């Protein structure tokens, strides 16, 4: 401030520009430096590590693509990657549920909808480890879930052991993940729906569109961006699922070890940092491929609905 007030008026303009530059640079330097230091340098290092056979303390040298090759040839890792399919299936259910609740809460005037939103959103606020412990008790034989199911008349003998039986245990874990993230997705959807011009509904109602038609023709195209975001986050989240399998599934025991858990084990138990880095790189590549794939897919699918949306909107506007 003091500098500004002492400069000559005719010089001020130029001076201020320089200052502006300086301020911008100074402000940018610190975060950029931190970003470089804590994100890009470690990332570059990880790429380098992935081509080495090394532990935390010993580097046995460059091994080319050997680490990468192992990721794809070891059945153990491929199986772990396939576990993501469970979580992806869960993600689809989760999005459908979230969208359903969001639409209902937005379209209908429901008493206590605020409370309901709060209840649905609450699990997202709970720490993932705490959720893990909650669900460990939830799924234990004869505990919460079994008690509830028995109360509605299902005998204990016909119930599976939710975490022991390998035919159901991954679904149990997926359920905890859906439980946690469904509310968050819902809130995002509600936010997006709220930004849609309400006159469109009125117009649609006058046109005689029912709720389902309104949902398909107005809401779905209107929240396309948020829907895409949620979908991408959920699918990439499924690829790197960790918390449920680590806490509820006893660190990935009993066939619940996701790829992320395998990476953790490789890095921290076996301490093969090179191999773990290569696995992390593969995971990242997978996530990128899935994200790009989804974008491409929806570019084609959504094009259609976007046209419908625009046509309807124009029609509605024309009516007014």
């Amino acid at each position, binding site marked *: 401030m003091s500098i500004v007030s002492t400069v000559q008026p005719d010089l001020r303009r130029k001076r201020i520009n320089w200052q502006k530059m300086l301020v911008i640079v100074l402000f940018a330097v610190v975060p950029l430096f931190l970003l470089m230091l804590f994100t890009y340098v470690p990332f570059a290092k990880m790429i380098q590590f992935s081509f080495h056979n090394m*532990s*935390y*303390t*010993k580097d046995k040298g460059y091994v080319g693509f050997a680490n990468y090759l192992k990721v794809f040839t070891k059945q153990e890792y491929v199986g772990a990657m396939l576990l993501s399919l469970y979580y992806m299936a869960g993600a689809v259910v989760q999005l459908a549920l979230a969208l359903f609740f969001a639409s209902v809460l937005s379209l209908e005037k429901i008493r206590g909808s605020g409370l309901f939103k709060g209840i649905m959103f609450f699990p997202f606020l709970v720490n993932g480890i705490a959720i893990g412990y909650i669900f*460990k008790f939830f*799924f*234990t*034989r004869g505990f919460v879930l079994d008690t509830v199911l028995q109360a509605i008349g299902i005998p204990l003998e016909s119930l599976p*052991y939710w*975490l*022991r039986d*390998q035919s159901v*245990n991954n679904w149990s874990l997926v359920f905890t993940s859906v439980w946690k993230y469904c509310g968050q997705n819902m809130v995002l959807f509600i936010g997006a729906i709220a930004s849609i011009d309400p006159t469109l509904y009125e117009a649609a109602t006058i046109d005689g569109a029912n709720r389902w038609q309104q949902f398909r023709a107005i809401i779905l195209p209107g929240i396309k961006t948020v829907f895409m975001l949620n979908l991408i986050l959920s699918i990439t989240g499924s690829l790197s699922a960790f918390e449920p399998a680590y806490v509820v599934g*006893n*660190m*990935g*025991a*009993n*066939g619940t*070890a996701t790829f992320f858990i395998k990476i953790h*084990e*490789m890095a*921290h*138990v*076996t*301490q*093969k940092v090179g191999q773990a880095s290569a696995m992390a790189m593969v995971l990242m590549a997978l996530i990128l491929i899935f994200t790009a794939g989804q974008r491409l897919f929806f570019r084609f699918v959504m094009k259609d609905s976007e046209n419908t949306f625009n046509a309807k909107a124009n029609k509605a506007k024309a009516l007014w």
Partner: protein
Amino acid sequence: MKKLLSLILALCLVLGMASFAAADGELPTFDKIVLGENTDLAADLVFYYHRTDLDKDENPVLKNYVAKFNETYPNIKIEYQTDTDYHENALLRVKANDWTIMGIPAINKDELATYYIPLGSLETLNGLYNFASAQAFGGNVYGIASTATASGVLYNKAVFEKAGITELPKTPDEFIAALKAIKEKTDAIPLYTNYAAGWTMGAWDAYIGIAATGRDTYMNQELAHTKDPFAKQEDPATGAYAVYKILYDAVKEGLIEEDYSTTDWEGCKPMMNQGQIGVMVLGSWAFTQMQQAGDKPEDIGYMAFPISIGGKQYAPAGSDFCFGINVQATDEQKLAAMYYLKWLTHESNFSYNEGGLPIAKGGAYPDLYAAFDGIDLISDVDALPGEETLLNEMNAESELNINNGGNTKVQGIIEHAFNGDKEFDDIMAEWNAAWSEAQAALNVEVK
């Protein structure tokens, strides 16, 4: 010029640090520390350790030790920091300077000097302390054992009596027969696996050395060179195969808890104490915890692992975490830490109280090892010079992580036995293959 500089530097040091110990720059070795001397020593120490169970507000065992120590050394402040995830976090924290004493985690022996100060020569300390070689490298000792244990099997005496087992099982067959008797005649769970906790499964690895072979060279010298270490050895059933076979058979015969995926480590202690569990395969450090978990401490017993070699049973004895002192600490801190460790080893009764074998030679043996009468207690000898890190490397390369956090492989035994989707011999064959591959990759001579 150089001389002047060093003189000034030395002067600064002398003036800056009032303590006489720092002034002479050289730390005494551990054996030269005499308790009762230097009682005005002042330092703030951070003691990083894994025993969360001893660091609870209702049972501040560790703090009580410090209070006792402070009666003689009032100016040495010690703050215990305990961590449930110690094994992992210690590996990260070892490089920092925010601790003074810690239990030395699983690092390679050739790195000991990077992080810890030498406490004395192995030659001297070996004569005075048990397990001095546990964390030694190049003739120097870097860690003093905290407590030491002989590994065996926890059992409930009342349950055994009720099941009509009068003589402790000495072979795998007798052991399985005893478990069956428990299942038939009592309501107790014969063998509680503690599957869910993970590390309790990796604990089985501790028996494949001395307990299964009777050889003190097996674990650190032979295993890395052995061809097919998991191959079947019959008549008598010995070796790693026999150890893991017990677990597989127990699961297959339905002699374990109903739902292994939700076992609860904290919950199993009172169950053991109250006679709801017959047997648990855990190190003797667990003995005291089981005793304290209820009102029947007298029922808890400890026996040697049920494998006999030539009619004789062997029990591996070894140290728990060894205490090491941070190389980056100040000289006062290092000296104060030495006094505390000396006191902990000689006067605190820490190891005895925890049911451990004596650390200082000539110390008393606790009751726990009453059933070890006539059983050979031997310690694993060190790896051969130049091969100190070989087993670690073999563990990493084979990803079996024997005795080194390889919990998932032992959990796999239970899963396969329960689901019936893989025969025991096939599991062992896989492990042998992984071991052979690692030997080939590391160019290890196979004998």
